[in-house]
């Protein structure tokens, strides 16, 4: 328990590290929404996210935590971006989720997590020629943005009966977005420029959810989340509040026999509540976004369910922030995963590989390959 507490204390320090998934689809507004998924859920396309106790999406899901558990996921991300201005390949590392959970009584469980909520990590390079002092001068600009909004959640789940649990979550949305604009002129008599700015965010949130097993082997889950206005600061000066969306999600998990589990969910966020606010500040607005995920887990050996099960999944999501005016982005992911436990189930490793495609229906496209590595410790 003491080790769990230590991990708990370390969580705030990790808050600033969550996120980092460079994408041209993360350049607008708050960036690219990120679903907080464990490596196991990632391997199932996110389909199991409302049921898996190592995911913070549904606060009621932690009722299945049997002992204190600390989980950590790290993801390596390779992508190729295409847009009307060219194409480029890149890679980066993200830390999508850190979570500690465990029972605190006969019917109560708790969970603390730090996860990425939106990600605004990208670097744009562009070249241009402008007239300065009556002569054309070439420019090479690089705009680097790092960071995004992180979600710190304190969740409690109450086991109403062996078939039904309720969960409540308190959220703090926080994070920073560090911008660096570099400009180099082709004429060296103009000095290169480096401008740094930092945007920071903070806002409250509440969530509630349930899991139920109305029919044997069939579980249902649902959650709703309210987030208050996100206060938006530039270099410590408050600029405005951005309304945050309501989140609704519902899912179903079916144990199809002893070795196959199927799970899926649908999720909806009314991001458009921020449309007016974003447009007022000169942005391109926001649209509501829905997503659906489905996955399966096939246990190869019923006696050793944690020994290299095979997971697969698919996820479709709409993106809320148009990259260019009038565009509507979407992403599709295919996943494969596995994992194992060791030292009497006290440690676990989960692995997932994903292939994702994003596009805005027009000229902006992105293909990515992700590898997620999750570690669980149950002291």
């Amino acid at each position: 328990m003491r080790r769990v507490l230590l991990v708990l204390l370390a969580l705030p320090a990790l808050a600033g590290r969550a996120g980092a998934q460079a994408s041209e689809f993360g350049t607008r507004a708050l960036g690219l929404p990120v679903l907080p998924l464990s490596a196991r859920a990632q391997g199932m396309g996110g389909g199991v996210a409302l049921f898996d106790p190592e995911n913070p999406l549904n606060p009621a899901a932690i009722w299945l935590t049997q002992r204190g558990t600390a989980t950590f996921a790290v993801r390596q991300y390779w992508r190729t971006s295409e847009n009307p201005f060219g194409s480029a390949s890149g890679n980066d590392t993200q830390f999508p989720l850190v979570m500690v959970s465990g029972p605190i009584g006969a019917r109560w469980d708790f969970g603390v997590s730090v996860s990425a909520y939106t990600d605004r990590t990208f670097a744009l390079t562009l070249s241009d020629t402008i007239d300065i002092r009556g002569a054309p001068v070439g420019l090479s600009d690089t705009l680097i943005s790092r960071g995004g909004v992180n979600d710190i959640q304190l969740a409690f789940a109450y086991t109403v009966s062996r078939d039904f649990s309720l969960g409540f979550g308190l959220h703090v949305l926080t994070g920073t977005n560090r911008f660096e604009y570099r400009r180099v002129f082709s004429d060296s008599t103009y000095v290169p420029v480096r401008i740094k700015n930092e945007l920071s965010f903070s806002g409250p949130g509440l969530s509630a959810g349930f899991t139920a097993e109305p029919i044997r082997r069939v579980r249902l889950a649902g959650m709703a989340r309210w987030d208050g206005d996100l206060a938006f600061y530039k270099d410590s000066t408050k600029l405005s509040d951005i309304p945050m969306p309501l989140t609704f999600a519902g899912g179903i998990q079916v144990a199809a026999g002893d070795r196959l589990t199927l799970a899926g969910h649908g999720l909806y966020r009314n991001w458009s509540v921020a449309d007016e606010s974003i447009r007022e500040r000169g942005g391109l607005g926001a649209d509501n976004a829905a997503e659906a995920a489905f996955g399966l887990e096939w246990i190869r050996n019923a006696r050793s369910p944690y020994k290299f099960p095979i997971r697969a999944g698919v996820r479709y999501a709409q993106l809320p922030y148009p990259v260019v005016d009038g565009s509507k982005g979407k992403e599709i992911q295919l996943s494969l995963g596995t994992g194992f436990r060791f030292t009497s189930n006290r440690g676990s490793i989960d692995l997932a590989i994903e292939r994702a495609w994003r596009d805005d229906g027009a000229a902006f496209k992105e293909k990515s390959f992700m590898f997620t590595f999750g570690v669980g410790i149950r002291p």
Partner: protein
Amino acid sequence: MSRWILFLASVLVLAGCEEELTVPGQCPELCPGGQPVVLDTVLFATEGGDTAFFGYTDRSGVSSLLISDGLDAGEARAWVRFAKRSDSVTVGGIVRSYTVDSVVVTVNLVARDTLVPGVKLILHRVPLTWDTLTTFAEVEAALSPASIIDSVTIPDTLKSGPVRLTIQDSTTLANLIPEADSGVLALGFRVRADEPTGIRIGAVAGASGAAGFATYVIADEVTDTSLRRQTLSVTANENFFVRNNDIVVADPDLLYTGGLPSYRSILRFELPSIIKDSSVRLVRATLELTPEIPLAGLRGDRAAIDVVGVTKDLGAKSPPAQGASATGLIPEDGTANPIGIDMRTVIERMRGPEGLPQTILIGLAPEGGNFYLPVFKSTRAAEGQPRLRLTYMLPSVVERP
């Protein structure tokens, strides 16, 4: 199993060590906040706030001696006076008289026009009474054919370094230092070439070494051949140069730099508030000065205009600020067009609440021995007033979502 885990973790960590976030883009389509705007503004010096002052490097501080022939930059002649040469040598503790065998005069060439071949340095015997107030006319008159001692052709391949003239002719040696001069030699220099040119040679106060004068003698009544030959060496202890276009009476409506005693000019500006805004990035600041007369110098001997910020505006005696200086090379084409000196570093020091005064001093570098005599128009001129061209960049509006 644990090794496998370690391997996987290592692969992940190593893969994560490098990140490449870049995607191609174009503003304003992709850039949040759009593309930072570059603006340009011209700021004239405060009217009446510009003045020329002289006396910064005085005549005794001349760093090199100018000698020219037919240059657009003006005619220049130089002279040196050596320390007294001893009239005896001491050999084996005994003072002996001597017989002069030969003499070597050495001058250190500092700069020349390497495109002019066959430059001949002509040495004249000149009066010992000359000082820094001796005029060009007096020197010119004294450097007549009758006073020529000898001459030496500067090797065409020599860009800088010692130039030696050896005198072995007995008549010349006998007349080199008349008895009335008590062992003191004074030499005047002029140059000749097939086309207009000039040279700079080292001076007493300069870093390149003053002229030297070595006398090789044979001590009288010494039979030991290894001790008979002695050398008496002296260096110049006085020197100066004169030119036919010195600033005699300065025009108060012009800005002077250089000369001896040297001139510097003060200029004052009032920076607009946008430039003082710390969020604005200054990408270039150019001081534009319009020459009153063409900027003439010696080809290949570059000179520059120095711009220095001041810690306090005390007029002529404004103390220079550390790290607030800029330099602009003077074009070699004898231009009368405005010249630009990039002085962003100086303007940067003027920005912000604790900024330096918006005052600068301009001067010539090197000062105190330079063919250039730049004279610029002031704020009193009808056109071509000194001005500052500022190019700056407004910050990107990153808060635009």
